[in-house]
């Protein structure tokens, strides 16, 4: 990634990304341990269940902040294009799988995998988008 050196917006993004990911692992451990060993109920159960989702929402905010802070409009445009392509792909894939689940009873795709699916599509889209401008 030639653009990393010297680009403060990207550096900040990478630090925050690492932070959010670490937070996610930590919260997931807490939630799993709590549910397996302590079996919480009521409001505590809901709060603990939501806990691992919070760093993921934070990660979305990290993406948003990068978009707002990146001064290079071309890099911003590339980023947005990748996000739009992966949005389309994710929506198409989940809709198709949703209908298949409903009518043909294929194995269930858990909701928590939709964000990783989005990231996979984004990983595929980013180099393809860059290819346009070579």
């Amino acid at each position, binding site marked *: 990634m030639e653009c990393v050196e010297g680009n403060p917006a990207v550096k900040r993004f990478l630090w925050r990304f690492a932070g959010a990911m670490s937070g996610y692992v930590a919260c997931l451990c807490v*939630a799993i341990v709590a*549910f397996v060993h302590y079996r919480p109920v009521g409001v505590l*159960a*809901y709060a*603990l*269940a*939501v*806990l*691992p*989702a919070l760093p*993921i*929402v934070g990660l*979305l905010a990290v*993406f*948003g902040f990068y*978009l707002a802070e990146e001064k290079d409009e071309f890099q911003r445009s590339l980023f*947005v294009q990748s*996000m*739009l392509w992966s*949005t*389309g792909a*994710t*929506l*198409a894939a*989940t*809709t*198709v*799988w*949703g*209908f*298949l*689940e*409903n*009518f*043909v009873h294929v194995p269930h*795709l*858990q*909701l*928590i*995998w*939709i*964000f990783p699916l*989005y990231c996979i599509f984004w990983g595929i889209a980013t180099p393809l988008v860059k290819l346009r401008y070579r």
Partner: protein
Amino acid sequence: MFCSMKNPVQRRYVIRCWIGALLVVLLTLVAALSFRVAHLRGPLMYPMATLPALPIIWVLIETGRYLAEEKDEFQRNVLVQCLLGGIGGTLALTTVWGNLEHFAQVPHLDLILIYAIFWFFAALTYPVVYRRYR
């Protein structure tokens, strides 16, 4: 409603969205009837189950085409922000709900609804974006 829209690109897009919406309802009915009433079996199951998803994918493609064809860069910019807000909200909601489903056994959210949830959040984003440019 369509005659008041002066922009031909916009008009074409909106009309196609409505046609797409009607087709989704129609094809879902066709698929539901074949599975629930006619008890369709065999290899034909998969294409029939995918049928209602096709107009949805078509509308997604048309949205992309609209973004490519719209000459007014400001309108394009507003729509892009709405789409990003839409996917952000959708990913946040599905992640939180997915965790609640996994840990706290809340009722299941059907994958098919994700497409509608996306447009719901996109519509929510519009007044936020609009206020930025007042």
